[in-house]
């Protein structure tokens, strides 16, 4: 495990952005994730997509959902975390590079897409990051954030009318969110190439423990090692 120091922790509602500085060089490409744990206990590390990376500094967008994320949310600058990674395939390894993309993120699933958005603006046609409350844009330091509370609509309802105008084969979609959201995206955008970055509970993060299976038309694969991004055509979502 590599030690990282907390530089800042920006909180909003159930979400927080941890800004960290690694004590060692590590590779963390767009779309990759890191496994994070605390030096204070022996609970297993959990996967979090990189929100940004610049040299040894990196950021994670995390939602409080359980004991580890609760503890992480309380970290202050100067505190330490342990991590290993980056793991998984980078987005560029899988995407059709000839297309321009619409990005659709649901909640903390927006993290890898925001990293993509900031890294490859020329590949992005437009981006839609959906949260309950758009106040989160303050900690994300980003526009393109849509709050269900403010708009009264979910992110798909907001994105669909706009994206539908571009169904000429030159555009694709990259999505990240829960399975329900991915199912709706597949139903909504039949004429688009869709790539999805999958969230799953993981054990090892490196392809050995079989903890994060994904059923595909090419057999069983691993979200951590073969993904987390997959061509949605290849994935059997309902298992």
């Amino acid at each position, binding site marked *: 495990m590599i030690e990282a120091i907390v530089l800042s922790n920006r909180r909003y509602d159930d979400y927080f952005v941890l800004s960290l500085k690694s004590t060692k060089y590590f590779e963390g490409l767009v779309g990759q994730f890191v496994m994070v744990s605390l030096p204070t206990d*022996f609970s297993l590390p959990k996967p979090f997509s990189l929100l940004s990376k610049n040299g040894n500094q990196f950021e994670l967008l995390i939602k409080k959902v359980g004991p580890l994320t609760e503890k992480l949310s309380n970290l202050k600058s100067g505190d330490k975390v342990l991590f290993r990674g980056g793991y998984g395939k980078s987005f560029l390894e899988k995407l059709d590079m000839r297309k321009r993309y619409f990005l659709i993120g649901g909640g903390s699933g927006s993290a890898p897409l925001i990293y993509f958005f900031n890294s490859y603006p020329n590949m992005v046609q437009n981006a839609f990051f959906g949260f309950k409350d758009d106040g989160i844009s303050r900690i994300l330091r980003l526009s393109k954030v849509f709050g269900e509370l403010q708009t009264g609509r979910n992110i798909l309802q907001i994105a669909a009318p706009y994206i539908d105008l571009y169904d000429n084969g030159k555009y694709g979609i990259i999505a990240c969110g829960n399975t329900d959201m991915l199912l709706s995206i597949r139903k909504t955008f039949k004429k688009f190439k869709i790539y999805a970055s999958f969230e799953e509970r993981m054990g090892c993060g490196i392809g*050995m423990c079989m903890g994060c299976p994904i059923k595909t038309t090419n057999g069983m694969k691993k979200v951590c090692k073969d993904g987390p991004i997959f061509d949605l055509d290849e994935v059997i979502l309902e298992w």
Partner: protein
Amino acid sequence: MVNVQGIKFKNPVVLASGPFGNGKEISQRLNLNLVGGFTSKTVTVEPKDGNPPPRIVNLDNGLLNSIGLQNPGIDIFVNKDMAFLKTIPTNLIVSIGGYKLNDFVSVVKRLDFDEIKIFELNLSCPNVENGGATLGEHPASVKRITAAVKKNTSKPVFVKLGAHPNIVDLVKAAVDGGADGITLINSLKGAKIDIHTGKPILKRVVGGLSGPIIKPVAIGTVYRIREAFLDLPIIGMGGVITTEDAVEFIMAGANLIGIGYAGLLDPTIPAKIANGIENFLLNKGIKLEELTSIAHRGGMDVLR
């Protein structure tokens, strides 16, 4: 150096079956030359897709898993996985699973490779229906399967069991069937309810519980079996994450120490523990054989 049933282990640390798959990924992050052995993921006759996700539930100091023995089946295991496993620079233990006696026999018949040093019969996976787990709860079937496998191989056969109340009878049955050693303990059975939804997180509700939270149960089981079987080789496992944990297992009676959970925490831990045990022995000025089962011989006092 540890000698178990005529097989030389560089040190008493072996990687347990499951968390490390069939070795490829871990070998890129941990020099397998630094551990005594590597246990394959359980292989069955037919390929198995395993259980639908979620398969992992993290707990404080532990883990619930519901993998369900996902594996490519014996054909692909022999043709692909073995090609890599043959090359690892440590003793290879192959874990075998099945639903009935013949499954174990037909798998073992396909695995006549010199590189395999030990077979481990997984008679205690908590995550499959009517599988090894059920077979492993009854002394009669434990004995029958062990004897049938022994008839079909000249290699040492270990039987992996869970922490059942009748564990002494089960181990006796394995020994009667010709087992050369015992692996203790497989994961326990546990469940977790999501209090926001009011539903179990795992689709099969109950999964295999492992990690530091099961260590006292594992230590207790190893101790009990060592007490009942003075010379039986034991691979002890269950929540070993530090050198101190490993030493505790050795004192309780384990000849070899299995590591699973800790490798998920940090893949380099097994090598650190192997090194830590060596340092512990050096500091105390004793040999591993003297430390093994010392809790049954009056403790460290006997060395003075």
